[in-house]
């Protein structure tokens, strides 16, 4: 254990008395321990800084597939014994792939933390990827696509990723496509693991009722001899705008009585300084139950049960999007209202009263984002992964409160579709076309083109 690197960061205004203890293993695994609370449950999160964005061309979905196989066998144990080791004690272990990262979130009763750190180390250090398990997982993934077709909201989200990020490493869902998954072989997972796993690109977070010194010893036991891995993560190129700008892409689902709608334009990289002003714009336009969009779409017109906007930002870039749904007959009307509100926001930005309200909303709710051990571990991971800075928790509220109306107006002008956005609609193409043609050239895809 490299004691020289150990330090504590004095806590924050959001979670009182939070202290972070940090150290590094000889192999380079960076560890953060945050003792808190009394409930004897501990959240652990291991994060590696490469995800679906580094899936090889034609092997989209490989990061996710590799992750799911970690639990299906290691050099020491088969899938059943691993499941039993984790689940018998009441722990739960997830295997997650995002665009910029893969992560293993683990929650365990405190008394089983040492054993669970051992299992976690085993999964990431020595997965065996048994042939039979690769075959089963591939079949299961392919079967999942068939079930996913029935979820219009999921289809819309995936179609948006595909068309808005067209040609970019972010332009596929983390689960890949039926065509790419069908090609997966054992060697693909072995190669992905060899190329991207190791302590050097990894961080480990431990949050809960723990003694940091004891955790340090347990981590040493489990991960002390782990070495290797790439020193830096693959550079993802910044996207050049969005794909299909100005077009309306319809995913044809002839039987649906309701359309799912997404409208999106380019946004900023995660962690960019504009994020605070942009969040003020987002809250005012489409977050919570009192946004302009909720008022115009749901309250005044009863067009939908839900409408919202969001900035989905990643290491190399982001999207600003509006999502909603409505009965097929009112799809054109819904899109007009959405576009009208975004245009109005772009032209004038939020009012001074709206800026103040959004600041209070964001600042007041911020402590809830780190309320559970799991959510704090995830935020601590994002702070590292996206370079948000050590003072992120401490200064978030102050930074939100410091946003001026002028800054919010500038963010609105920049992200509220100054160029034509891309529109995605999932529903019956034939009935939708007359309502959509005035919004831009209509391109029809089948669900198979998306999955």
């Amino acid at each position, binding site marked *: 254990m490299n004691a020289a690197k150990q330090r504590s960061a004095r806590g924050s205004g959001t979670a009182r008395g939070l202290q972070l203890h940090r150290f590094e293993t000889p192999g380079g695994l960076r560890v953060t321990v945050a003792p808190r609370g009394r409930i004897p449950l501990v959240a652990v999160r291991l994060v590696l800084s490469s995800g679906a964005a580094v899936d090889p061309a034609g092997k989209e979905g490989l990061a996710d597939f590799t992750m799911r196989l970690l639990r299906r066998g290691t050099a020491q144990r088969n899938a059943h014994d691993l499941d039993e080791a984790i689940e018998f004690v*009441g722990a739960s272990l997830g295997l997650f792939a995002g665009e910029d990262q893969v992560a293993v979130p683990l929650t365990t009763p405190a008394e089983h933390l040492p054993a669970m750190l051992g299992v976690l180390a085993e999964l990431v250090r020595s997965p065996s990827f048994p042939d039979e398990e690769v075959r089963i997982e591939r079949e299961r993934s392919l079967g999942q696509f068939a079930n996913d077709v029935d979820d219009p909201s999921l289809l819309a989200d995936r179609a948006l990723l595909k068309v808005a990020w067209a040609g970019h490493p972010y332009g596929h869902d983390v689960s890949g496509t039926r065509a790419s998954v069908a090609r997966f072989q054992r060697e693909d997972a072995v190669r992905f693991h060899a190329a991207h796993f190791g302590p050097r690109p990894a961080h480990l977070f431990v949050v809960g009722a723990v003694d940091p010194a004891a955790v340090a010893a347990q981590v040493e036991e489990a991960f002390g001899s782990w070495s290797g891995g790439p020193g830096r993560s693959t550079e993802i190129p910044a996207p050049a705008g969005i794909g299909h700008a100005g077009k309306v892409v319809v995913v044809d689902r002839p039987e649906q009585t309701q359309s799912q709608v997404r409208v999106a334009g380019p946004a900023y990289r995660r962690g960019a300084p504009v994020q605070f002003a942009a969040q003020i714009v987002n809250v005012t336009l489409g977050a919570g139950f009192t946004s302009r969009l909720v008022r115009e779409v749901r309250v005044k017109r009863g067009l939908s049960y839900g409408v919202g906007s969001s900035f989905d930002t990643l290491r190399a870039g982001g999207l600003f999007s509006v999502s909603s749904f409505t009965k097929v007959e009112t799809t054109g009307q819904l899109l007009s209202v959405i576009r009208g509100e975004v245009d109005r926001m772009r032209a004038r930005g939020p009012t001074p009263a709206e800026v103040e309200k959004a600041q209070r909303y964001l600042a007041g709710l911020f402590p809830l984002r780190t309320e559970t051990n799991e959510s704090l571990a995830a935020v601590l991971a994002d702070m590292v992964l996206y370079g948000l800075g050590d003072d992120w928790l401490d200064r978030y509220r102050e930074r939100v409160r410091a946003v001026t109306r002028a800054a919010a107006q500038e963010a609105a002008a920049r992200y509220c579709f100054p160029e034509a956005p891309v529109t995605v609609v999932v529903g019956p193409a034939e009935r939708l076309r007359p309502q959509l043609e005035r919004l831009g050239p209509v391109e029809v895809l089948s669900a198979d083109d998306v999955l």
Partner: protein
Amino acid sequence: MSPRKTKPGAELFPVHEARLPNGLRVRMVPDHDAPVVSLYTFFQVGSRNERPGITGISHLFEHMMFNGAERYGPKEFDEVLESNGGRSNAYTTHDVTVYYEDFAAEALDTVLDLESDRMRSLTIDDRSLRSEREVVKEERRLRVDNEPAGLMDEALHALAYQSHPYRWPVIGFMGDIEAIRREDCEAYFRTFYAPNNAVLWAAGDFDPDALVRRIRKAYGDIRPGPAAPRVVDAEPAQRGERRAELRHPSRAPSLLIGYRGPAVVHPDTLTLDVLQFILGVGEGSRLQRALVYDKRLAVNVGVDWSWRRDPGLFSFHLELQPDADVRAAEEALYAEIRKLAEEGVEPREVEKARNNLRAHLLREFTSNSGRAHALGTYEMFLGGWKKGFALPEAYGRIDAPAVQASARRWLDPTQRSVVTLVPEEART
């Protein structure tokens, strides 16, 4: 008067209690880790309190609760709350309706004002009813009409229940959502939204003595309502398997199979919790291993044993491989159930389920919102929140023979209802 504080025994944290003269029950769980509070209001009403013709009124009414009252006008509830650094939502089930807010601690007085205002003097007018009706219709299109799992759930309840109000969906039928009148809503509010039919749970950064004074001030003058009419459970006995088929343009078939179970207060309820874990929770559970990994018939398996005030359903949801033989999948499920009923379970499986149930309970207790929600739910269903804290001990008394006996008793083939989703071409 100070609220009564319970002695910490089996409890992981103290709960303070009070009862207002109008019948409102108040529960408080102070915690000073972060400057936030969660407030939950549980109303003992759900779709089981409805009748044909107004199905879905409990849920529609939940929407109406955000449309203004005497002091705070239409949509001001969320406006004021969000301006003060808070958020709110609500949900309706067959048995309960729950409203909740998470917010910065300094907004506590404002939130009590908002909540008590709508309990005292909700505005129910035709205009907001018209608007919310359209919103709820979209919600139904989202969750049921365009979602196979929603369609199947609706079909299962219609099949498993012939008389009991559980036979209709919580969201209601489209025709009923359209037909509900303002007068129906008014009668509903008077009966079910009275303080004597509610329990208030607060958890977070406050002083309980001060809070109970503030609650008395905010809610004390609200008049109690009449006793809620008894829900008659006239469900006739089931005398054999029931089957329904649902045709839908989906890619893959699926199965939803429900067995008639007991009401939550029945002693077997907790044994069925254990059985649910052994059969279907986790990658290493029996059905996951048999149907997903060994036989590879299913993509996902879910086992649901949701507590209900009246006899509920113990159900299995199998999302199948697109080319799976549905009959074979169904038979494979029954074979696993038979095996369990005939050969019993290993003591280690029971211990594993108990460990998981305990961890689940602890997980609920890791946030203010989780503490208020979990304990409030236990109070609603078990008749007292202390029974929630006592659950690990109660699960500890369940052994392998008890689990086997419960499987034999409740997973009886004559007591099941089977819904099959059959893929077919889209009809436009």
